[in-house]
């Protein structure tokens, strides 16, 4: 029995270094396989080559159609214009008043032509509404007689237009400019009549000159459009081969053939990833090229934005190709990991839709007006790279170089995560072979109850996080007014903390696991970790304050948001200290830690999910804070808390660190103002508020680092990540022992 009680959790296939030759073999095979597939070839090669010329032809047709269509204007009450300077010349406006060479179709009515039989305003309104005329100009009867000194509404010229119709809006602009010119001429003649020099109303002249050379204008246009087109196609180009190479192979049964060949799982992943990336890049490049060629013809035919836009400058566009490599790899690795979950090509397509929805905002964000490269935007994956490329294309080399390390750091971080995920997927039996069985609701509910374990499963952990974040989101929307007084603040803090974070956690832990203590990871760690956690909380706080300051400098809080926070912070500093300590430190430390570093962490850390547990709980913890600036700081703190939760295998040190940190944040002002002489050693009161002494910052950083080093030496006792089955004391049990009697 000694043999069977020794659990073996290693997953086969992942040992040994991947061999370059095997990766190359697999890569070449996958490429050849895809190239022999008509559907793939059609989507990545034939479609782009045909698509753009077809769209271009269509565009040209539409352009011709719209140009042939004249703008129609109706003028009612031309007989009232006799006293005024000439507006009309026969069938059209006086030529000197119009500055556009395109003709306007003008139809004229005398007042009584309409007024004799119908109501003028009703009739003209219906003309514009029906589109009989794009705009109608009404000259009222008392227009000419109106006394210029009195403002009489009935004498006003009316311009009727319809905001729902683009043509009407264009017509309105044109007619407005004609009427403006007409009025200016009128004023001029009146001034001359009364003997005033016309120059008095024109004290200076304005010449606006666009200094951008023609080249830059083109660059600005293409540097926005081309990366967008390329990234969207890089995504699409990664999706279909990824589905075919993983889900499709599963469906056809060829994946198992490959898995039992001598190729390592890592070699298979790298080979397939290479193939998917190649297709992603080919698709992007082919589409961009085809679009460039077509558009340069189309733009020559129809003028865009007033001037013609030529082909983009080619050399700077090479930057785009360089940036495409990591981004295409990133998309491909993610698509590969997601596709691995599917049992068939059809199922794969269901999964990739949500993936597209998540990625698309990252590609769309840089297209928004005003989004430029900065320390903040360069931290956003994909977006940062996109903006960097734009800066490079526009020739701002120094500026781009400044942000290069951040962008490269973020991109390689994401790349590493995506590739690791894909590799893990290929190492996971339940991903590769699981599923297939029928799913029924009552069966599933029974399974949840019957197969409860001492801690949550990863899926339950994800669900708990999602429930908390959703509850917080809707809870935040429900709060419409700022809290009044201490009772208001208590309600504002306790409702989300207890009702939306702790309650779902406790509910899930009670219902879905057999041990509340084990599910929430309430275990006694080595006794030294507890005082050290408090010490770490104290010594880490100066650095936390610096981090928060850096964040608010990089991503400044909006004035409105700051103003909204002001009464809240004022009330906190006025309230009794112990109450505030309870509300702002104890409650959040308990509720948030039990949820994030307790239940959720305990679920995610299982099945070799150490990295997953730390990263995802930090991210969820960050998002739960709602305000971007707080979220970033919380995510970074969450990483540290998660790591300590991993090392100590308990939720308790995290609670202590969290409590100490929050307690110091709300007490700093009180410490600085206190009568205690020693306070000056640590904190001083400055104009901007209390601040730590530089000496203490350095010392505390040293102490904090020592604490962290100590935590890193803790030996694992139960090793949660390797456990599938845990009994109440966290000991590993052999599932077969329990089952043998069943």
């Amino acid at each position, binding site marked *: 029995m000694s043999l069977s009680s020794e659990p*073996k959790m290693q997953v086969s*296939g992942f*040992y040994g270094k991947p061999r370059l030759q095997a990766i190359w*073999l697999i890569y070449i095979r996958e490429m050849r396989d895809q190239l022999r597939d008509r559907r793939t070839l059609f989507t990545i090669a034939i479609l782009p080559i045909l698509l753009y010329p077809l769209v271009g032809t269509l565009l040209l047709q539409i352009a011709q159609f719209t140009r042939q269509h004249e703008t129609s204007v109706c003028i009612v009450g031309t007989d009232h214009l006799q006293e005024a300077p000439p507006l009309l010349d026969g069938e059209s406006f006086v030529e000197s008043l119009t500055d556009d060479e395109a003709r306007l179709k003008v139809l004229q009515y005398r007042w009584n032509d309409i007024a004799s039989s119908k109501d003028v305003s009703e009739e003209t309104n219906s003309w514009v509404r029906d589109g009989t005329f794009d705009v109608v100009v009404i000259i009222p009867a008392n227009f000419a007689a109106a006394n210029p000194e009195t403002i009489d509404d009935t004498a006003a010229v009316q311009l009727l237009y319809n905001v729902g119709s683009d043509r009407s809006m264009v017509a309105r602009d044109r007619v407005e400019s004609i009427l403006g010119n007409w009025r200016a001429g009128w004023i001029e003649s009146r001034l001359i009549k009364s003997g005033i020099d016309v120059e008095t109303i024109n004290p200076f002249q304005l010449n606006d000159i666009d200094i951008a050379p023609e080249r830059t204008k083109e660059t600005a246009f293409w540097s926005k459009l081309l990366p967008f087109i390329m990234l969207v196609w890089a995504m699409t180009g990664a999706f279909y081969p990824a589905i075919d190479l993983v889900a499709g192979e599963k469906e*056809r*049964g060829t994946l*198992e*053939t490959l898995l*039992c060949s001598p190729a*390592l799982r890592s070699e298979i992943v790298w080979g397939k990833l290479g193939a998917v990336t190649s297709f992603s890049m080919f698709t992007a490049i082919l589409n961009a090229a085809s679009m460039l060629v077509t558009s340069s013809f189309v733009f020559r035919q129809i003028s865009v934005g007033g001037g013609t836009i030529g082909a983009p400058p080619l050399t700077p566009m090479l930057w785009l190709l360089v940036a495409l490599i990591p981004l295409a790899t990133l998309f491909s690795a993610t698509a590969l990991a997601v596709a691995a979950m599917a049992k068939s090509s059809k199922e794969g397509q269901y999964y990739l839709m949500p993936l597209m929805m998540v990625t698309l905002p990252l590609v769309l964000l840089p297209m928004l007006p005003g989004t430029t490269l900065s320390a903040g935007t360069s931290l956003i994956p994909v977006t940062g790279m996109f903006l960097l490329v734009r800066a490079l294309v526009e020739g701002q080399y120094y500026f781009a170089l400044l942000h290069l390390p951040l962008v490269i750091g973020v991109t390689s971080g994401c790349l590493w995560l995506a590739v690791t995920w894909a590799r893990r997927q290929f190492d996971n039996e339940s991903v590769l072979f699981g599923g297939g069985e029928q799913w029924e609701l009552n069966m599933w509910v029974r399974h949840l109850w019957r197969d409860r374990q001492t801690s949550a499963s990863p899926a339950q952990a994800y669900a708990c996080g999602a429930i908390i974040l959703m509850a917080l989101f809707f809870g935040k929307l429900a709060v419409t007014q700022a809290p009044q007084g201490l009772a208001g603040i208590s309600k504002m803090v306790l409702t989300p903390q207890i009702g939306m974070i702790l309650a779902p956690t406790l509910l899930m832990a009670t219902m879905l696991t057999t041990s509340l203590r084990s599910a929430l990871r309430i275990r006694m760690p080595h006794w030294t970790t507890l005082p050290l956690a408090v010490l770490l909380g104290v010594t880490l706080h100066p650095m936390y304050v610096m981090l928060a300051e850096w964040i608010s400098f990089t991503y400044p809080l909006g004035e409105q948001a700051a103003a909204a926070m002001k009464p809240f912070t004022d009330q906190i500093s006025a309230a009794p200290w112990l109450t505030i300590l309870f509300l702002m430190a104890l409650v959040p430390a308990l509720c948030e830690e039990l949820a994030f570093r307790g239940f959720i962490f305990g679920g995610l850390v299982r099945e070799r999910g150490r990295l997953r547990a730390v990263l995802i709980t930090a991210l969820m913890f960050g998002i739960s804070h709602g305000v971007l600036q707080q979220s970033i700081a919380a995510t970074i703190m969450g990483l540290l808390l998660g790591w300590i939760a991993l090392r100590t295998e308990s939720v308790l040190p995290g609670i202590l660190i969290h409590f100490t940190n929050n307690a110091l944040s709300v007490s700093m002002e009180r410490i600085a103002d206190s009568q205690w002489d020693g306070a000056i050693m640590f904190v001083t009161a400055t104009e901007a508020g209390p601040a730590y002494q530089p000496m203490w910052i350095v010392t505390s950083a040293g102490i904090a680092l020592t604490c962290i080093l100590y935590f890193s030496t803790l030996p694992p006792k139960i090793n949660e990540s390797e456990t599938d089955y845990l009994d109440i004391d966290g000991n590993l049990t052999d599932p077969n022992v329990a089952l043998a009697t069943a």
Partner: protein
Amino acid sequence: MIDVQYLTKTYEDLNRGPFVAVDKVSFQVGRGEIFGLLGPNGAGKTTVLRILSTVLSPTSGIATVAGFDVARHPADVRHHIGFVSNNTAIYDRMTAWEMVEYFGRLHGMPRQTLTKRLESLFEQLRMNEFRDIPGAKMSTGMKQKVSIARAMVHDPPVLIFDEATLGLDVLVARNLLGVIRSLRESGKCLIFSTHIMSEVEKLCDQIAIMHRGRILDTGTLEQLRNKHDQSDFEELFFGLLSRHEQQESSDWNAEYELDTAIEFAGVEK
């Protein structure tokens, strides 16, 4: 060549809870032997063979193939086996020749040796007439031949056939059994799983009868016949299975009665 000790595999199953697909299975197979794994569908044969081919990892227990542990040295194990199963299909968009060549190269065979080996394999299995036909256009029999050639290309000492005759017509199945016999003669170690009794009777040196994850009995055909005093193998097989089922249900009943007795006792207190 193959040594399996207390091999166990547990799955999470929505319907049944933690489900033991393979329950403390042990057996040995030597060189030049054909080991038959006989059992109804769902007995756990495929799971055992998937663990031996390192595609799945065992929950507990040890399995070594050609001296390598399947959990610790999976790549070495895969170098020493050829695995043919219903679940190992061939590529639709590759010809027979390309397919076998690809796997030969994945085994790291030098080009010249590989070409020679391919020529002789294609000759031996009579595959030359369809060597340039893509997988999608092959008949089931052709596909099966390609799979066997793919598994044999690196001349492994151990060959594993999982329900390899399933879906084949009589002629092709007979041909396959011939191939397997000739492999034994060349000293290979073979595992052969099936639910067709006649194949086992004709072919296997050692037989293990599997049911619900457990090996009910193992031995040579003669040994099994003598032990159970039953010359008709089919009767022997069904007898074993039904006895096992009866025993399981009586075990379950006994346990259930014990549980209810305890409950009642508790209530009375």
